[in-house]
C-alpha cells in the first residue's frame, strides 16, 4: 500500500503549493492522529502496511487549511479507532476510516470545517488559526474567509471559470485543488492494479449524466457536468476514497453499481441538500450498502443456470 502513499505525493505537493505551510501542518497532524492511535491500540506490526498513513493523508486532504491542528489530530485518531480498529483492523471495517474521521469533525466542529481562507498575503503566512488551543474557538477575522466554488454557486449563484477548477487555484480543502493531478495518480494506481478503475469511471459517468440532464432542463439553476466533476471533493473522493478496496464491492458489476449510487447521491445532495458538498456522505452511505451489493452482484458460476444463459 505504500504505492498508494507514493501516488498521493503529487496531490500533497499541490496542496502545499496552494495553501503554504498550513497544508503541511494539517497533514502532519492528521497523520500523527491516525498513526499514533494505530500504534497505541494495535501495536507496531499494524503500521508496516502503510494503511494508517493513507488514512491520515486522506483525512488531511479533506480538511480546510486553516483548521486548528488539534482538530485534525483528533479526526485522525477518531477515524482510526472507530472507523477501523473497533471492527478488527485492516480488512474488517465497513466505512472508509478517513471519511468517518471527517464526518465526526463535521458534526463536532461545523464552523471550523467550513471556514475557507481567502487568498493569503504570502506563501509563508498561515491560512487560519492553526495553533488554536484545544477546545478554544479559533480566531478567524472575517476578512480572511473566502468561499469554495460549490459554496459560491449554491449560496451566491456565482460560477467559477473552468481553468482555475482544472488547475486547482480555488478555495477549498487541501485535496480539492488540482483534479488533473489526482486523475494522474489514479491512472497510475489503476495500471498497477491497486485501484478498480470501474468505481471512478462509474462515479464520473453518473455525475456527468445526471448533472448534464439537469443542466439541459435549466442551465440557470443547475451547473453543468464539467463544473460538477471538477469542483469540491469529487475527484479526491472518486479516485482515492470510494476505491478503498476494503469498503467497496468485490465484483466488477458491484463496482459499477456502487459508483453509480455515489454519483447520484452527490448530485442530489449538492443540488437539493442543505450543504454545498455531498461527496463524503454519498460515499459513507454507499459503504454501508456494500455487503448487500456484494450479495446481489455475485457472478453466475461457470456451468450453472445454463438454460437461461445458453441462448
Amino acid at each position, binding site marked *: 500500500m505504500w504505492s498508494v502513499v507514493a501516488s498521493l505525493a503529487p496531490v500533497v505537493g499541490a496542496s502545499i503549493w496552494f495553501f503554504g505551510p498550513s497544508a503541511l501542518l494539517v497533514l502532519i497532524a492528521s497523520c500523527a492522529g491516525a498513526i499514533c492511535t494505530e500504534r497505541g491500540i494495535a501495536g507496531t506490526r499494524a503500521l508496516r*502496511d502503510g494503511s494508517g498513513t493513507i488514512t491520515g493523508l486522506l483525512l488531511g486532504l479533506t480538511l480546510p487549511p486553516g483548521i486548528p491542528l488539534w482538530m485534525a489530530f483528533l479526526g485522525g485518531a477518531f477515524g482510526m479507532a472507530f472507523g477501523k480498529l473497533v471492527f478488527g*483492523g*485492516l*480488512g*474488517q471495517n465497513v466505512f472508509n476510516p478517513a471519511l468517518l474521521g471527517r464526518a465526526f469533525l463535521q458534526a463536532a466542529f461545523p464552523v471550523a470545517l467550513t471556514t475557507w481562507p481567502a487568498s493569503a498575503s504570502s506563501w509563508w503566512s498561515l491560512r487560519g488559526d492553526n495553533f488554536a488551543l484545544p477546545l478554544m474557538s479559533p480566531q478567524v477575522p472575517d476578512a480572511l474567509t473566502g468561499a469554495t466554488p460549490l459554496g459560491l454557486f449554491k449560496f451566491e449563484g456565482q460560477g467559477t471559470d473552468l481553468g482555475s477548477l482544472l488547475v486547482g487555484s480555488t478555495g477549498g480543502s487541501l485535496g480539492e485543488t488540482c483534479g488533473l493531478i489526482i486523475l494522474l495518480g489514479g491512472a497510475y494506481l489503476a495500471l498497477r*492494479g491497486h485501484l*478498480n478503475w470501474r468505481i471512478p469511471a462509474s462515479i464520473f459517468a453518473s455525475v456527468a449524466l445526471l448533472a448534464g440532464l439537469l443542466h439541459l432542463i435549466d442551465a440557470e439553476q443547475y451547473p453543468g457536468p464539467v463544473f460538477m466533476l471538477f469542483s469540491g471533493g469529487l475527484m479526491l473522493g472518486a479516485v482515492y476514497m470510494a476505491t478503498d*478496496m*476494503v469498503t*467497496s*464491492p*468485490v*465484483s*466488477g458489476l458491484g*463496482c459499477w453499481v456502487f459508483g453509480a449510487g455515489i454519483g447520484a447521491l452527490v448530485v442530489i445532495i449538492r443540488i437539493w441538500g442543505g450543504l454545498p458538498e455531498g461527496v463524503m456522505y454519498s460515499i459513507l452511505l454507499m459503504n454501508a450498502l456494500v455487503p448487500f451489493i*456484494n450479495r446481489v452482484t*455475485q*457472478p*453466475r*458460476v*461457470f*456451468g*450453472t443456470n*445454463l438454460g437461461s444463459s*445458453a441462448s
Partner: protein
Amino acid sequence: MRSLLSFRHGVHPPDHKQATEHIPVRRMSFPDEVILHLRQHTGKPARLCVKPGDRVERGDVVAQADGFVSSPVHATTTGTIVALELWPHPDGSRSQALRIAVERHSAQVPRPRLVPEWRTLSAKELIAAIRDAGLVGLGGAAFPTHVKLSPPEDKKIDTLLINGCECEPYLTADHRAMVEHPEKVQHGIRILLHALGIERAMIGIESNKPDAVEALRATLPDDLDVTVHPLRVKYPQGAEKMLIRALIGCEVPSGGLPMDVGVLVQNIASVEMIATVFESGLPLIERTVSVTGGGVRRPANLTVPIGTKLRDVLDACGGLTEDVEEIVFGGPMMGMAQADLNVPTVKGTGGIVVLSKGESRQGETHPCIRCGHCLDACPIFLNPQNLGALALARRWDEMEAQNLMDCMLCGCCSYACPSSIPLSQLFALAKTSLRKSSIKGKAA
C-alpha cells in the same frame, strides 16, 4: 490480428519455459532402485500379484487392476522385488509401494510380446488393450484411460479434444512431444477415434508454441476431420472445462463431466503414449518429465522410468543449485511441494520444478482487503474471497452451498491474491473435509 479462442477470467503468470522448450528429450540411465506405488492412478489401488524375492522383467505386470476404476502397474525395470512397504507418495501421504532392486548390467530388454494391430480390434477389445497397458491420463490427475473411453450408454461423444495447451509455467514435456513426434500424436488420435467410433478431433495449443502448431498441421491426416487451433496464452487454458469453453464454446454443467456436452478430452502425453503402446507393445513404464526451474543445474526433458526416486532424477540433471528453495511435482500452479528426496515419480508426474529462492512465492500472509482480484481471476466465477473467509472459520457446509465443489483448485486465486492468502490450499482442505464427511454420512 484475429483474436485467439480462449475462456473468461484466468491469470497470466510468466511462463518460464525458455529453459527447456528447445532442449530435445533425452533418456536417463536406469537408477539402482525403483519404487512402484500401487496407487499410481485415481481410483482403487492396484492389487499386488508378485511377492518379495521374485525376479521381474521390464514390462511384467506386478499389480493388477482391482475393479473397473483401477489400472494395472508394470515393472519399469528388470530386477528383483525387495519389499512391499509404506513409502512417501508424491501426494504427501505414505502408501504401499514395491521396491525393486534394478539388475546390474541388464540389457533392460523387455520380454518379446505381441504388438496388437489396433485396426483389426473392436472398440471393446481396443479399450481392454488400453487398460491392460496400464494407461492413465498423463496430464496429472492420472484417471484410468479405459474408464474415460467407456461412457455410459446414454452419453454420446461426438468430438475428441486434444489438450496441447501445457498452460502450467515451466513445463515443456508436451511441447517437445508435439515438436519431436507429431506423427505419433496423430497416430494416437487415430487410435482413440477408432475406439470411440467417431471422426472428429480438435487439437488446442497455446499460441506460445508456434513450432508445435506447425508440426501438427503438417502431419494432419487426409481422411479424418482433425483440426489444430492456436489458443490464447492464459492459465488455466488446459483445464478441461476451459479448453471446451474455448474450442466448442459451451460450458460443462456444474457437477458434470465433458461427456455431458459430448466431448472427451485427452492430453498430448496420453495420446503419444497410446501410440507408443500400439507401436512397441510396451505398457506404460516410462514417460517424459520436464525437470526445470532455477534450482536445478542442467534443466532437461527427461525420459524417466516410472518409480524413479526424486534424488536420482535430480542427479541425472546435474543436481541442485545452492539457492534451491522448493521442489514441486507437477507445475508451480497446481503441483505438490515435496518434503523428501526419496519420493518416487508416479504415472501422473509430468514435471519436476525446482524453484530457487527468487522464484518461490512464499510471502507472509496479510489480512484480506477485499480487493476482488481473486474474483477477476477465478475461471469458474466463484467468490474466492468469501469462500476463503468461510474456510478460515471451517464453515464447510456454507462453502458447499456456494459451489465449492466446482472449484478445480487451479490456483488462480492464490496467484492473484496481493495478501498471499493460500486460498486454493484452503479450498483443497475444505473439499477433502466435505468428501470425508459425505463418506461417513453414507456409511452411517
